[in-house]
C-alpha cells in the first residue's frame, strides 16, 4: 500500500492555494490522476518523487517511510528511485537514445527490450533534437522504466503520441508495469485514454 497524506501551498495565477491530498493506493495498480489546470497534479508527482517538499505530510511506500515532516524524514529522489516521466520530457540533449538508457542502467538486454517496446531500435544513435515529439515521449517513458522502479510517476505521458501508437503502446505499457510489479500514477487531461487499464482514478480539486 502507498499512503499519501500531504499539504502544500502552491502558487497559482489567482494567488496561493492549498494542495491537500489524502489517499491510499494499492500496490501494483495503475492510477489515473485528473484535475483542472493548476490543480497541483504535477506538484503531487514531484512531491512523491522527492523533487519538491510539502509543508506538511507523510508518504509511506510499502511500509517504507519516504517522507514524514513530523519526524523530519525526507528521502532524496536518488533513494526513492521513482521512475519519472516529465511533461516536457526532460531528455538530455547531449545523449543519444541508447546513451539515455545506458545512463540509467547497465543491462544491455533490458535496454534492447525497452528499445523494442518503444519502437526506437532504428533510432538508438539519434539525439533528442532529431526525434519527433512522439519519439521523444516514448524515450522519456523507457528512460524512466530503465531503472526498473517500483513506482512510476508519469505526467501526461501520451499527449504527443499518434492515435495508433497510443492505442498499441498503452496495453503494452500495462503489461510491462504488471510484469515488473510497478505501481503507477498517471496524470492525464484525457482520462478516456486510460479507460479499461486504470484501476483507480484520483481527482484533484
Amino acid at each position: 500500500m502507498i499512503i499519501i497524506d500531504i499539504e502544500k501551498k502552491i502558487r497559482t495565477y489567482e494567488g496561493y492555494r492549498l494542495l491537500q491530498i489524502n489517499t491510499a493506493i494499492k500496490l501494483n495498480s495503475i492510477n489515473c490522476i485528473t484535475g483542472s489546470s493548476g490543480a497541483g497534479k504535477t506538484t503531487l508527482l514531484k512531491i512523491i518523487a522527492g523533487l519538491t517538499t510539502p509543508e506538511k505530510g507523510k508518504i509511506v511506500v510499502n511500509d517504507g517511510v519516504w517522507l514524514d515532516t513530523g519526524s523530519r524524514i525526507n528521502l532524496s529522489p536518488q533513494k526513492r528511485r521513482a521512475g519519472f516521466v516529465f511533461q516536457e520530457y526532460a531528455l538530455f540533449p547531449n545523449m543519444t537514445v541508447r546513451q539515455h538508457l545506458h545512463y540509467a542502467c547497465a543491462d544491455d538486454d533490458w535496454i534492447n527490450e525497452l528499445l523494442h517496446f518503444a519502437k526506437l531500435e532504428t533510432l538508438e544513435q539519434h539525439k533528442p533534437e532529431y526525434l519527433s515529439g512522439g519519439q521523444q515521449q516514448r524515450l522519456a517513458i523507457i528512460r524512466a522504466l530503465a531503472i526498473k522502479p517500483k513506482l512510476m510517476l508519469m505526467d501526461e505521458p501520451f499527449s504527443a503520441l499518434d492515435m495508433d501508437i497510443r492505442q498499441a503502446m498503452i496495453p503494452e505499457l500495462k503489461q510491462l508495469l504488471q510484469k515488473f510489479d510497478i505501481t503507477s500514477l498517471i496524470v492525464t487531461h484525457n482520462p478516456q485514454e486510460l479507460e479499461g487499464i486504470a484501476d483507480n482514478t484520483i481527482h484533484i480539486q
Partner: protein
Amino acid sequence: MDWSPIWLTLRLAIITTSILFAIGLPIAYWLSKGRSLAKIVIEAIITMPLVLPPSVLGFYLLIAFSPQHGIGLWLQQHFNIQFVFSFQGLVLASVIYSMPFMIGPIKSALQQLPVSLAQASYTLGKTEWQTFIKVLLPNIRASLLTAIVLTFAHTLGEFGVVLMIGGNIPHVTRVASIAIYDSVENMDYATANAYSLCLFVVTFIIVIAVFIFNKRTAKIPLE
C-alpha cells in the same frame, strides 16, 4: 625585438584562465542555484571588476598586498610570498580582474538549462556530482568555451591593473600591453607595432576559432 613580453603575456593568460576555470566552475554552479542575500552580495563583488576602473582595483590590490602592512606583510613574514611587483602578483590581479568573464557566462548557461534535466537525472539515482559532470556540463559546452576565450582574451589585454600591482619590470611583470605603452612613450613605433600586431593576430585567431566551433555545434534539427 624582445619577445619576453609576448611570452609573459601568454603565460599569464594561460595560468589565469586555468585557475579561473578550476575555481569558476564550482562558484558559477553555486551561484546558479537559488538566490539568497549572500549569493547576491558575492555575485556583486565578483562583477565589480566589470564596472570598476582597472586602476582603482589595481590601487586597492597594491595597498592590500603591500609588504609593509596588512595581508601583504603577513604573507611576506609567514610564507615569504610577495605579490607586489612580482609575476604571482600579476596572476592574482588577473584572476580577480577576469573573474566575471569566466563566471558570468557559465552561471547564465546553467540557469538557462531546464531544472527538469537535473531532476530527471536525480530520479535515475544519479548524484549531484554525476549530474553536473554527465548532464549539465556537456549541455553548456558553447558557454564554457566562450567563458574560457573571454577570460583568456581579457587577460591578454590587461593594462591598468597589471601596471599598478606589477609595475614594469622586464622579464618579470612587463607584459605586452605595458611594453606597447613603453615603446610608444619612447617613440619606438616599430616595436609598439610588432607587439600590437602579435596581440591582434593571437586574439583574432582565437575569436575566429570560437565562431567556427560554435557554428559547427549549432546544428539545425530536422523539421
